[in-house]
């Protein structure tokens, strides 16, 4: 089923919330649209978003990888390149722990950032429909609607006080469903 994006722009939060309610009335569910704002609003301000993320796993996986690499560098190289200095033990745990710790933390940070990018569905250079007024403070409601409901979605948003409603020229060619709609719990 081909989907088409419709973007409604609201100048204030009350009309944006009214727009969200109107969309529900015409059968467009919470999973089928996202709200675009220029700063985070309190959770649930536009209804509860059911999407989940695995961001918390990324630093854990990263930390494990970093620890393993740290162990390999410190332990492995002492075995491969043995160098006795001042009669100190070849396999010296305390200094190994320091480098392993730094490796663990470094990889945890890198993986967290990669996770943040991936879980935010970035990078995404081929723009969906977007309006730069959103960064000025407008609130955008971006609906991923089946072709036959596009007009009713646009009408619902206008009825709730949208200052501008824009539609994508044509349905996205690659996917039959947007990523959001594929997620667990979506009922598009």
């Amino acid at each position, binding site marked *: 089923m081909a989907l088409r994006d419709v973007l409604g722009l609201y100048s204030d939060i009350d009309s944006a919330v009214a727009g969200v309610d109107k969309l529900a009335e015409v059968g467009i569910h919470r999973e089928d649209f996202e709200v675009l704002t220029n700063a985070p609003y309190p959770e649930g301000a536009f209804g509860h978003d059911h999407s989940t993320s695995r961001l918390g796993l990324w630093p854990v996986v990263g930390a494990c990888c970093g620890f393993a690499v740290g162990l390999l560098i410190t332990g492995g190289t002492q075995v491969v390149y043995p160098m006795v200095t001042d009669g100190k033990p070849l396999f010296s745990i305390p200094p190994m722990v320091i*480098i392993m710790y*730094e490796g663990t933390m470094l990889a945890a*940070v890198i993986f967290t950032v990669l996770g943040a990018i991936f879980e935010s569905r970035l*990078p995404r250079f081929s723009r969906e429909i977007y309006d730069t007024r959103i*960064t000025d403070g407008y609130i955008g409601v971006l609906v991923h609607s089946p072709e036959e409901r596009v007009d009713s979605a646009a009408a619902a948003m206008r009825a709730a006080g949208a200052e501008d409603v824009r539609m994508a020229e044509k349905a996205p060619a690659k996917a039959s469903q947007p990523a959001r709609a594929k997620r667990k719990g979506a009922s598009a």
Partner: protein
Amino acid sequence: MQERRNLPQMEVIQELLLPVTRTTMWMWVAFIILGTILAAFGFAIAWMVYWGIGVTGLNRPGMWGFMIVNFVFWIGISHAGVMISAILRLTQAEWRRPVTRAAEVMTMFSLMTALTYPLIHTGRPWRTLYWVFPYDFWRGIFPDVRSALVMDPSAVITYLTGTILFIYITTVPDIAMMRDRATGWRRPLYRVLALGWQNGERQWVIQTATGFLLAALMLSIFVSVHSIVSWDFSFSLDPVWHTSVWAPYFVIGAVHSGVSAAVTLMVLMRWMFGFDKYIREEHFDAIGRLLVVVATAWVFFFMLDVFFALFNQDPRETAVMKMRFEQWPYTLMLVLIFVFGYFIPVPIWMFRKFRRNIKLMFWTSIMVNIGMWSERYWLVIPGLERKYEWTFDWNYYRPGIVEITLIVGSFALVPFLFMCFSKIFPPVSIWEEKEGQYFLQEIKVGKASIPAIVREF
């Protein structure tokens, strides 16, 4: 916070983008002065690399001089940035919003500056690769991971990488905002860096959660880094260096100098960029209170370090301590450490009226860092001058003009880089400031109307 005002969205954006969109006369003046100093700095480095480190005052056994002192100093400065940012984020302190970005950027540039010094101090910077990075497998040469000089780069590079990523990921929404406004060469730059950020709900949730996660990770790195820097010294058997108290002592000293540097930076941002509405007196008030505690803890560790040296009755330790307390220039350093680092600023910070006096906060923060730089000199240099027992092996370190130029250059490099950053990215987080505006409410208590913040947990 009681003094926050509800400002229109466009006003917030325009005012906080001012350094990016307009170069004021003061910024030009600063660029020219700092650029001139940096030219001398570059020349001094080139001179030293060409002629070798014989042009400095370094000589056996005192091979660690001004450059290593400066390395420790700038690593210390870098600490408060991420510490302030991370602690305030984790505790959801409302007054963090205008402070965090600048503090993080200060961390990044201080670390870069700090890293310059061990590199150029080697005399042949390109050969540093032999000692740190494992690349020469075929000759069986490999860095000894048991050496503190390998641990140190691993810690500092972890911290620098983490800081850069932390800054980047928290700046992406602001970059996207600038992408929507930019023209010319900036537009493709912002477009690439924004990664297609769209301001979606999910993206904001991830952004907030990432801020918490990275803050927690960076805090633990922050503590480890200056501890490891202190082990560069205390892993050795040299008198007064070889002590277990240096790790916490270095960390608390770093916080003292770094938080003071953050105050300096905040005042400069108010003066140069006109951020009076965002960096308010209440911020200096809060940081001033924090500084009283930090400075007092630092003095405690200072005394502890002295007691550790005296209680073990080792003649070499006692001799170095005697030199530190009785001989020029260490006597002057000692006065600077205590008077500038504690006895003048702390009594001033005890009073709310003075904490809210911007000029006074500026000068006391400068004083602290003069004191803290002297402290690093006082800690690092004397131990090597008396490294050996016999007097013919003693050495008196006197810095040369090249080293003095290098030190002055570092104090120009960090602000210069910060100003360059401010010409491309907003030095105050605009999206966080706007988020704060969304949560702002006026509540009535009796006849009083009080600005309050709605907070999520």
